């Protein structure tokens, strides 16, 4: 027994009321402390006479050495304060905190680490129990703020607690300011508090806002120079990514930064106070911070977890299961699939989409595309008011979302469609319990195999994008659905959106899921899910069609399907391999996969038939749609074969059959690798960018003029017209965009062009340049080889026509094709009455204002052109030049439809999220 008198440090207890916890229980727990405090006060709360923490500290007697700050709802053990005082005295800590656990015994905090953005990180797993594993007295970045002991003189010197900050961040702020003054911030594990963290709900933005204020006060300017912008960007990323998890943080994001902008004066004041007479700089703070961003790490972990839940296999996300999955072929092949896609479209990343056939670069301005789609002017050929394809609206939207980056939107859509296709095929097959690895193999063949290559070879980029959507559209119909109005509504919305997207890419594919699912339901007639899926597909088809407004009202599926001649040239080896896979899948698999395989075989054969059925009236676009269907069926067959071949309980003959099928699968996989060579996702190489690059030789000419392309029909960009068997079409310079490949029926100016060409061809005139100049045609390009013994007949015939003209000059320097340029001047798509040529800016014409003058606009005549007064002149338009810009008033009905569609899409997306959250 010691006779030395013990001097107890005087401690004042301050309870911070936040109206969230149980105050009575806290007060009771405080009353049970073995270390008595000299006084106890309650601060904060909603009462009008409530003191602030700083005011309470200021009122304390100078004899008080420590202030114990306890949050309302915290339940300290009886020796909590004693342990705090003891460790504080022993270590000389300026701030020392308690270990916090919840009422279930799970640890909540043993001191905090933050990242450079002051985002707290506990380092604890969810529900990690306290087994003494962190019981070490140590320095920490901050204290949780539930229970902490602070030297009174320190807190007084620091100016108290920052009342503007959220409680947790306020304690971090206090710790950081204390550390700058040289104080130690520690954790005392012997001091324990039970605290159930209340739900912060919508007040979470305040914590984010407080962080920014907190670090702004303590970091040097140099550090802030990179921390603030980086934090801003992370906030954007978080806001976007969180959408996919059903959280809408965009408004919070703006609120956080808005609040801080409003607090700038007081933040500056606080900063001066915090950094005055500091004995350490932020390097001392960095010592207790973790690297990287806690937010980004959290988002990544959450994304991976979400992805894993969508992959077949264990639904757990434990470290063990991740390790097990990583060792599985599915995970490896999945990574390879991503790599495969990235490599397969690498050229698009650098050069953008090739300009060839129906694949043309996205419009440079996404708003032009949206405006054009929503009842605006259709720029194809010599223009028309015919509704553009919804694909253009998607391209425009992608362009806008990528801030009009040169080629990023094109890369995003192509690579995204391929990944979506692989992923979708996996998910679809998973519906029938086919594993990840077979699903991935099927997905790769689906997006890169011979059928996909056929679509790409046809240059139908819309179909190529829709290829990625089709499995999702079917899966959305046939996958299980939870009961409840909201989940059902969410699913219906999801189906309509998928179908709309499908139809937007390739209108004919909109008609595929319904009969496909109906046939499957017919052959698995006891499966209620499939019958429900058939109904969903009906709704999806109707809803998807409506989402294609205004396009859907001006075009018929029959016309689209019958344009051109379908004939897919398939290698006999591939055909045999396909038959082998089909046979192996249908007869080699066990129930219930046999029927699925039969369904896949029927799809595959139907698609094959359509893709070659030109003699039955199927057209070129139907060929591509048929190829997608064939690819889908082939994917199902490959999935079934790959799944079956790995089963061990097969009869011997089945094993042999599926083994042979597996060889054919390998064959298809190898043939799918071919697209890696070009790096364009199977699309042919660029033609028009290179061919028409000469139009940029003289600055400004390309924007003012058109190009007449003549030659073999298959070398024309998109649709073409014919005269006496020769194909021709007019395109914009320097390269036509995605608004131009599909021509509308001939208008008056098209007829005029036809007549002029007829006169030129028949030799009625030998001044083709003068005849074509009124249409803004400056150049004539003969596509194909028009010279030598290997010359194409069509190219040669056209070359002879234009070689025999008196006012056309041949261009020879640096051009691959025969090119003629007119000797006429001026030539312009929009010419004023003073012969000034207005360049094309985006999809309209702009030039110098000329009051009282007129502009002759070489587009098919339409009274919607302005500014008024409009006049039809020589089969074209004449408008006023008073405003310096040629306008086109959108068709009101089409514009209204497009707006309704946009609203509907937003509403459907919202419905999907609501439905998913409720699920």
């Amino acid at each position, binding site marked *: 027994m010691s006779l030395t008198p013990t001097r107890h440090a005087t401690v004042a207890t301050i309870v911070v009321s936040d109206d969230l916890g149980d105050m009575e229980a806290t007060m009771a727990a405080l009353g049970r402390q073995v270390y008595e405090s000299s006084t106890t006060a309650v601060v904060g709360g909603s009462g009008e006479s409530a003191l602030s923490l700083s005011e309470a500290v200021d009122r304390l007697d100078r004899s008080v050495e420590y202030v114990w700050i306890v949050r309302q709802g915290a339940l300290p053990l009886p020796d909590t304060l004693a342990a705090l005082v003891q460790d504080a005295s022993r270590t000389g800590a300026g701030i020392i905190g308690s270990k916090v656990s919840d009422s279930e015994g799970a640890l909540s905090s043993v001191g905090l680490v933050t990242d450079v953005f002051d985002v707290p990180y506990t380092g604890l797993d969810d529900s990690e129990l306290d087994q003494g594993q962190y019981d070490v007295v140590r320095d920490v970045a901050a204290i949780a703020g539930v229970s902490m002991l602070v030297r009174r003189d320190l807190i007084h010197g620091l100016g108290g607690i920052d009342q503007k900050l959220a409680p947790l961040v306020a304690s971090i702020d206090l710790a950081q300011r204390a550390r700058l003054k040289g104080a130690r911030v520690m954790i005392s594990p012997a001091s324990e508090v039970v605290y159930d963290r209340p739900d912060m709900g919508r007040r979470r933005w305040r914590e984010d806002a407080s962080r920014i204020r907190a670090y702004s006060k303590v970091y040097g300017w140099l550090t802030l120079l990179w921390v603030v912008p980086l934090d801003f960007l992370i906030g954007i990323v978080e806001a976007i990514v969180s959408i996919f998890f059903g959280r809408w943080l965009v408004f919070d994001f703006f609120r956080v930064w808005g609040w801080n902008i409003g607090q700038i004066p007081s933040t500056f004041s606080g900063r001066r106070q915090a950094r005055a007479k500091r004995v350490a700089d932020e390097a001392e703070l960095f010592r207790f911070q973790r690297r990287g961003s806690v937010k980004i790490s959290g988002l990544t972990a959450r994304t991976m977890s979400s992805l894993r839940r969508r992959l077949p296999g264990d639904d757990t996300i434990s470290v063990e299961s991740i390790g097990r999955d990583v060792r599985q072929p599915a995970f490896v092949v999945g990574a390879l699939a991503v790599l495969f896609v990235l490599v397969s479209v690498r050229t698009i990343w650098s050069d953008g989409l090739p300009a060839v056939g129906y694949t043309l670069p996205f419009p440079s301005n996404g708003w032009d595309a949206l405006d054009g789609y929503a009842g605006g002017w259709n720029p194809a050929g010599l223009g028309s008011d015919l509704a553009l394809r919804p694909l253009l609206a998607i391209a425009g939207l992608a362009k806008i979302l990528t801030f009009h980056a040169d080629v990023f939107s094109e890369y995003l859509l192509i690579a995204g469609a391929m990944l979506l296709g692989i992923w979708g095929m996996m998910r679809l097959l998973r519906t029938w319990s086919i594993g990840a690895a077979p699903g991935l193999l099927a997905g790769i063949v689906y997006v890169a195999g011979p059928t996909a290559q056929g679509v790409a070879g046809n240059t139908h980029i819309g179909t190529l994008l829709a290829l990625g959507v089709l499995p999702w559209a079917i899966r959305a119909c046939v996958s299980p659905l939870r009961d409840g109005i909201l989940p059902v509504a969410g699913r219906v919305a999801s189906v309509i959106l998928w179908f709309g997207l499908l139809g937007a890419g390739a209108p004919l594919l909109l008609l595929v899921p319904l009969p496909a699912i109906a046939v499957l339901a017919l052959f698995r007639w006891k499966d209620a899910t499939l019958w429900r899926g058939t109904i969903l597909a009906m709704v999806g088809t109707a809803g998807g069609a409506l989402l294609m407004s205004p396009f859907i009202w001006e075009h018929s599926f029959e016309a689209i399907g019958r344009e051109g001649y379908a004939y897919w040239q398939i290698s006999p080896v591939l055909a045999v391999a396909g038959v082998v896979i089909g046979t192996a899948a249908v007869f080699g698999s066990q129930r219930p996969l046999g029927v699925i395989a039969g369904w896949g075989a029927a799809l595959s054969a139907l698609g094959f038939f359509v893709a070659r059925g030109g003699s039955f009236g199927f057209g070129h676009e139907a060929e591509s749609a048929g190829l997608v269907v064939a690819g889908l069926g082939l994917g199902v067959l490959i999935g079934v074969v790959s799944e079956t071949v790995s089963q061990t309980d097969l009869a011997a003959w089945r094993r042999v059959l599926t083994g042979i099928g597996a060889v054919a699968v390998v064959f298809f996989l190898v043939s799918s690798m071919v697209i890696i060579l070009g790096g364009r996702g199977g699309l042919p190489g660029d033609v028009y960018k290179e061919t028409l690059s000469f139009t940029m030789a003289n600055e400004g000419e390309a924007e003012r003029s058109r190009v007449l392309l003549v030659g073999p029909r298959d070398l024309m960009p998109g649709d073409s017209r014919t005269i006496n068997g020769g194909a021709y079409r007019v395109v914009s310079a320097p390269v036509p965009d995605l608004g131009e490949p599909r021509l509308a029926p001939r208008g008056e100016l098209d007829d005029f062009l036809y007549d002029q060409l007829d006169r030129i061809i028949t030799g009625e005139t030998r001044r083709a340049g003068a005849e074509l100049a009124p249409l803004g045609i400056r150049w004539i390009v003969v596509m194909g080889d028009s010279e030598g013994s290997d010359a194409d*007949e069509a190219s040669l015939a056209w070359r*002879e026509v234009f070689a025999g003209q008196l006012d056309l000059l041949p261009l020879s320097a640096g051009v691959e094709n025969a090119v003629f340029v007119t000797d006429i001047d001026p030539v312009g798509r929009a010419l004023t009455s003073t012969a000034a040529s207005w360049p094309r800016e985006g999809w309209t014409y702009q030039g110098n204002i000329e009051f009282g003058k007129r502009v002759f606009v070489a587009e098919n005549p339409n009274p919607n052109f302005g500014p008024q007064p409009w006049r039809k002149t020589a089969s074209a338009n004449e408008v006023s030049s008073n405003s310096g810009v040629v306008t086109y008033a959108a068709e009101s009905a089409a514009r209204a439809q497009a707006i309704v569609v946009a609203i509907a899409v937003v509403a459907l997306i919202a419905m999907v999220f609501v439905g998913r959250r409720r699920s």
Partner: protein
Amino acid sequence: MRRIVLAVIAGFLGVVGAMQVAPTDAPAPDFGGSEVTIPDGAVASPSAWYCPWVEASDIVDSDIVVATDPDVTVNYTLLNPVTNTEPSTASLDLVGPGAAVLNTGTVLRVGETPAIVEISNGPATVASMQYADAFISADQCLVSVPKIWYLTGGSTKTGTITELRLFNPFADNAEVTITAYSEFNLDLVAELDGLDVGGRSWTTIDFAPYLPFRDELAFTVTTNKGLVIPALIRSDDRGEAMWPGVAPAESFEFPVVSPGELAPSIAVMTAGDDGVVVTVDIITEDGTIRNAREIVLDSSAPGLIPLSDLAAPPFGVRVRATAPIAASAVATVPEADVEGGEGGDPSTTTTVVDDSTTTTVAADEPFISGLAGTIGSARPASEWVVPVDSLPGAETTLWIMNSSPEAATVNYGQLGEIEDSVLDVVTIPPESIVGIPVDVGIGIYGYSVSSDRPVSVAWEISGDRGVALVAGVPSG
């Protein structure tokens, strides 16, 4: 069972799909093809005429004569022989029906200046005439630009020069292959294979260095790339004649072949790969001598059919063949002996039309010096717009051939910058020709000819300087 049903469906669809055949390749554009397609005449629309042989220098002058039915604007473009020099142009508005002449020397006098004449409407026709103190040469200009041209009537025998003018009025470079045929059949000249003719330029090839001492020469000019308009120029110490390429046909009519006392011949070549029988009918002012001469023409050799022994001038000729041929008329100063024809094909036979099959022609100097040649008309027509020209000391005669078995009533009227056009009527007996001396100059530079049945029209100019024959161009 269900999977089998599905498999059967799949098999059926797959088999039907596999049975489909590829579509047939789309035919090449039909823009008229690469064969000779000289139009039958002037068309009722704008047109561009090419005149390869135009020259204006210190000793040579050229006229370009335009005759038109409607009001037109005529734009003349004369290419400049100086490299990289813009062509010279001239323009005139012509009230139709009318005609006008342009002395090219008033626009550009720098030597050879091939011309392009663009006429804003039609029917209208163009002819060019070159003249100096010692010669006149003339013929129609050309409106069509075929890929293969046929030119007959050349010779490089002693004292005779044959040149080929290749005129490329277009900007694109042209590459041509010239194939020559002579009495030695196919006469290969490597240098003339793949000959380049620059855009908006011309080249003139003298055949004496390549194919000397050929009595008969005929050519095909094939354009491998681009387009050219050729003309053959034949000259000797007595004169010069020029005529363009022709399109093959099975029949040609030459309303006049015997100017002055020159000895006419018909130069022919076949356009096909087989031999062909060529028959000549002589049509005089008094009637027709049918089958006056007949030859069998080999596929790779030209033929020259002498005519001076068949009838007394003036007369015209109708040439008929069993397959398409090219033909032109050439009239030269007679030589001492034309028995059996000049360098004629051994298979040439002479039809007995008179007491004797051998005619001896005196080698006296004709009353006019000269050399004439022209192409024929492949098809008689009822309407003709004929640009004509004249020179001091020369006479112009309009020749009309009625090869039909019935008489033709022909109206002809003056065209020019005159207010009151004189209209005349002449009746042409069946299968005969009529020569009508016409007034030219002083505002008259053309004649419109209309007939109640198809006729062929040509004109002749003869005088001190020489003689020239010019084929007419039908307009309807």
